[in-house]
């Protein structure tokens, strides 16, 4: 171990760059990050809190449209995440445990939401569920209104956030391999017992990780929802949509106050991610330390 460290240090000395180059590269990186990310984020909070905490809170909660937007987001995002969990676990299991025709196509399709513009997703839903769409009229005849209603919001959000959980789970499941499941099978476990006692527990970290990313993306989704919501205040409007509306109406303090909620969620996501990373690293490190020779 010591030896390895020594070699690594010698290597890093050998490829030491001149000081001016290092300095200018670091300054450039800091400036880009600062102006692109740091300043706008700080500015959001600055503007939101400029009237003091009391004004900040009343800006958010006094307007019923703002409250509705928060409730709609709390309604839509968990449902989208739940659907993604179902889809994520089942398709990760399918892709990592079975070889079947169309496997590569499925893998490519899962990545589609990363590549496609959310507006196109929204338009697709309008074409499908609209009054002259493929499914719209027949659903309307049984009294189900999808478009301009919460189902459309959930569908759009689910579509856009589809890859997050699957993409976290597939590498984890592939690295674990089927041996533990086979071992459980040989010990007499049924399919359900194997899933709940072996497969699911070994995915905990990946699942948490995927869920956090998925939640953050679901809360912040704008493009697809913008198309399918009908943009009616108090009806099917999520936080990002309300933020945009307030911006259009020049209600700057309220706008920034609501935007700060989204920013806090984003920062919390990053923090949770960081904590989980260090947790899993720590667990690994203690495992190594506790291991004793046979």
């Amino acid at each position, binding site marked *: 171990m010591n030896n390895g460290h020594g070699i690594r240090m010698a290597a890093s000395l050998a490829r030491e760059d001149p000081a001016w180059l290092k300095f200018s590269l670091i300054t450039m990186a800091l400036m880009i990050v600062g102006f692109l990310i740091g300043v706008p984020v700080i500015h959001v909070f600055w503007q939101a809190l400029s009237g003091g905490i009391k004004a900040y809170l009343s800006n958010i909660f006094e307007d019923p449209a703002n409250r509705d937007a928060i409730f709609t987001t709390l309604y839509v995002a968990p449902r989208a995440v739940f659907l993604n969990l179902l889809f994520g676990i089942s398709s990760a299991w399918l892709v990592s445990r079975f070889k079947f025709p169309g496997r590569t196509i499925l893998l490519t399709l899962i990545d589609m939401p990363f590549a496609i513009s959310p507006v196109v997703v929204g338009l697709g839903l309008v074409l499908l569920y609209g009054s002259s769409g493929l499914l719209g009229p027949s659903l309307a005849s049984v009294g189900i209104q999808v478009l301009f209603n919460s189902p459309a919001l959930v569908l759009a959000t689910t579509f856009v956030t589809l890859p997050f959980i699957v993409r976290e789970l597939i590498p984890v499941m592939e690295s*674990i391999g089927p*041996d*533990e499941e*086979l*071992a*459980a*099978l*040989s*010990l*007499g*476990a*049924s399919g359900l*017992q194997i899933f709940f*006692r*072996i497969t699911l*527990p*070994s995915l*905990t970290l990946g699942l948490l990780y995927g869920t956090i990313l998925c939640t953050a993306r679901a809360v912040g989704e704008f493009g697809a929802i913008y198309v399918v919501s009908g943009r009616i205040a108090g009806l099917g409007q999520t936080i990002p949509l309300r933020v945009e509306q307030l911006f259009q109406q020049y209600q700057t303090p309220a706008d920034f106050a609501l935007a700060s909620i989204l920013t806090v969620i984003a920062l919390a996501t990053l923090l949770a991610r960081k904590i989980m990373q260090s947790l899993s690293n720590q667990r690994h490190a203690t*495992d190594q330390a*506790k*291991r*004793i*020779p*046979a």
Partner: protein
Amino acid sequence: MSITVNKVSKSFGTFRALDNVSLEVPSGCLVALLGPSGSGKTTLLRVIAGLETADEGAVLYKDEEVTDTPVQHRQVGFVFQHYALFRHMSVFENIAFGMRVRKWPSSKIQQRVTELIHLIRLEGLDQRYPSQLSGGQRQRVALARALASEPRVLLLDEPFGALDAKVRLELRQWLRRLHDQIHLTSIFVTHDQEDAFAVSDKVVVMRQGKIEQIGPPVELFENPANAFVMDFLGHVNAFKGQLKDGRIFLTDYVMHSSQGKFNEQGIVYVRPHELEIKGVNDHFGSLPAIVDHLHPSGSCIRVHLRSPCGQASCCVEINTDQLGVFPINVGDKVCIHPKRGRIFDQDYNI
């Protein structure tokens, strides 16, 4: 519980992993399936366990046909090559798993796990997780887990494959003693002939999906059925030669014996300890050789020699004290003479 494999065949695509294999394992016997990689030994084990289904043929436990019984109802203990311990469960929970899914009462589970932890000598480590154990300890936990719900047979896939030499040796002896205690019909797969010889009652040598020979270790070593078995079970030298008046005459060296050379006409197979080194060519049928190098190997010394033209080589094992009587140095011109040898293509041994 005895195991019978009756004319089992299994193919993966165009690859024939098992070709009409029949095997009889008596109750309480510890059998090793030995062969090079790709010989079908692991496939045979998995077919017996029910982790693979045979294309043709039948598998019987005692008199009960289990060919179509799924693995979870066969009551087998299976130890996987890389142990496949449940990484999110403690040692205790790993061992208890089979009993929990079979709904044993918890007091009985507690008692059985404690008993098994004592058996595998891991007292005090029952709350550890698999990642906190060494290779040998994991192996023993995997074995305890397989034994926990009292299986009818125990099947082990390369049980010593991932262990370093010293742990391997210990575990080998431990497994043998364990088997003598519990007398469970057991089959294990290995590619290492030392593993097979040290542990098993009977060895099954496999090649290309077929069984080449079945027998107790000593018999296999002394009376190999063919050149493949002879070559696979320890070092062997190959020479051109013939049999005259009950004696072996070596006529020439054979270049590096490869698999394709088996059963070629007029090949004599001689184990390193069955060759003698002489100073002069006093025996008719001896071959001249030049000493290449000597290296000590436990109680004996291995002498590597090459033919005078320097192309082919052979290996002789001599006792250390023999070296005092007849000193050998690198570069010496000597003669090698076979005390014993085997010619397989003529259908008899000497």
